[in-house]
């Protein structure tokens, strides 16, 4: 996917660009705020990674102009600023996420991935419920009752599959396809691992993942144990 990186510190920009290129993304790297703002006007991106302190035009201004023009592209802000006198945060200005420098590069990559997936997942709230489990596919958040639970990417995919058809039994092979596609080699043990983690994270919910011996797994609503 195409990513715009706006970062004026060369050492940092280089490392980010290399990391995303290594995972198959195309990165346009700009060092000047004004020229970045111009590019955004006529280019479509899957994600914009925006530094705040920039020559020409600062990151917050760019963010404001993006949102003012109705562009809903995911924006991840990188900030070295202290919020010593800030009245509004990057999130209030319409950023989807932010990281304070210095950050862990793996974390940046992971958050960027979450944002890109969320964006391609559609705009409207897409709520699926089973018992007291609610999965919001737009924001990719999961609630059990009034608790919000943080799930990993594959755990969420697994839950989405199960929750979409409660009561239906999914075989391990079916789930393997859904979770890993065809490009990755994974074995049935991986499914057991994810189901185990997901069960633990859903503890206390009114729906359970039930193992149907020899067939696979199903999500059962209600307190039946």
């Amino acid at each position, binding site marked *: 996917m195409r990513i715009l990186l706006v970062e004026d*510190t060369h050492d940092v920009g280089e490392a980010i660009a290399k990391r995303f290129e290594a995972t198959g993304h195309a990165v346009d790297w700009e060092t000047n705020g004004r020229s970045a703002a111009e590019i955004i006007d006529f280019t479509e991106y899957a994600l914009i990674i925006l530094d705040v302190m920039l020559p020409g035009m600062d990151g917050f201004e760019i963010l404001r102009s993006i949102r003012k023009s109705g562009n809903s592209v995911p924006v991840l802000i990188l900030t070295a600023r*202290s919020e010593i006198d800030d009245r509004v945060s990057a999130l209030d200005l319409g950023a989807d996420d932010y990281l304070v420098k210095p950050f862990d590069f793996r974390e940046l990559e992971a958050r960027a991935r979450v944002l890109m997936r969320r964006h391609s997942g559609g705009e409207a709230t897409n709520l699926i419920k089973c018992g007291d489990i609610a999965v919001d596919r737009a924001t990719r958040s999961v609630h059990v009752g*009034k608790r919000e639970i943080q799930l990993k990417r594959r755990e969420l995919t697994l839950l989405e599959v199960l929750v979409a058809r409660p009561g239906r039994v999914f075989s391990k092979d079916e789930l393997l396809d859904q979770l890993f596609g065809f490009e990755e080699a994974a074995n049935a043990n991986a499914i057991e691992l994810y189901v185990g983690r997901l069960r633990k994270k859903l503890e206390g919910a009114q729906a359970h993942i039930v193992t149907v011996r020899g067939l696979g797994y199903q999500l059962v609503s209600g307190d039946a144990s």
Partner: protein
Amino acid sequence: MHPELPINPPSLFARLARRISLVLGIGVALLVSAAWYYADTAADKAYDRLLVGAALQMAESLAVEDGKLSVRLPASAFELLGLADRDRIFYRVIDTNGQTVTGYDDLQSPSASDNNSDAMRVEEGTYKGEAVRITRATRVLADPAVTGRAYVIVAQTNEARSALTRELTLRATILVIVMSLLAFVGAMLAIRYALQPVEHLGRAVRRRDPHDLTPVSVNVPRELDPFVGSINYFMGRLGERVDLLQRFIADAAHQIRTPLTALTAQIDLLGAGKLSKADRQHFARVKERTGELSRLTNQLLSHAMVIHRADSVQLEPISLVDVARRAWRAAVPVTVDPDIVVSFETPENRPMVLGDAVSLREAIVNVIDNALRHGAEHRLEVRVSAIDTQAFVEVEDDGPGIPPEDWEKAMQRFSTSKSHEGSSGLGFAIAQEVAKAHGGSLSFRPRNERGFVVVLTLPLYQKEPSAAVR
């Protein structure tokens, strides 16, 4: 360092009142003395005239009969003296030879030399142990038989004139005291009125928002200008300091974080793949130390930020759930260990607190970060709740927790404890600082079978404070 303030500092009003009473008191004493003096003089003058008149009448009544000095004292003279009815009169008539003709012959003539015949003198004296006024009238006789000077000495006791003096003095004193009281009351009222602007100014300064460092603009009399000037001067200096500190922190944040990010970026680029086994260990350590440096830098900057914001940012009603959720999202990395169950629980209602969203988020982020780094093994729960007048953010993990004896130490900056790997750094110190600035507190709950809980307690925002009073 500071000189002890007296428990009861002297009031300007009391001081002025004391001074004015003193001046008025001295004035009253002087005026009363003067009144007494004038009354005394006036009474003397009045009664002396009667005395002299009587003496003259008596002297006039002296006559020579049959070659002898005869005395026929006129009744009118005694009538004149009788005006002072309680006083006693003594007299003595001395003939030309110096012999007493009649009266008390031990009554002394007022002055020995009496050449200045015309002026009738009245003098103080004592007779029979009583204070008297004495005068002497001279009659020059030119009879062939009796020639020379005959004298009439008249003395009168002082009761009437003393009474007059007393009465005159008393009346004058009453007048003086009434006037003084009026003056005192008037002065007190004037002082109160004059001191009013001081109170106005005090109230205006007290009512100000502590974050407002603009000059005070209250209408005060010219005399208070230096005072207001000083206040504004200090406000100005404080404002400059605050701005300077703010600029410094902002500069430090950008100037340190940018190269630090560049450093971590380069370490990330380097990667461990191409290194030899020994170098890989060094590389891991460099990476770890850089991470520590990054974390510490962020904590120091965040500590400076929350301290500064506590003094400079206006608190406003905010939703604690929103702030805590943002903190939760920021503090829990997406790359967190997949075996840790991380959850966030909110109450049905939306508890509101009066606070600074940035500082509160920073506090919660630090508590969660601490729990993830030092506590959580399989579970981390963040809960927001509200009971009565208090709102809570609880961070629970299933780690070993902090034993109660180390709680106090854990709140301190850069404290280390045995149960924690390394230092908890500034995390709890930041959270505690923020809690205090919001009128709340940071506390721990003893480890139970579920886990160890850190609680941030904040007062709930009352929508209408007046409704609570009613």
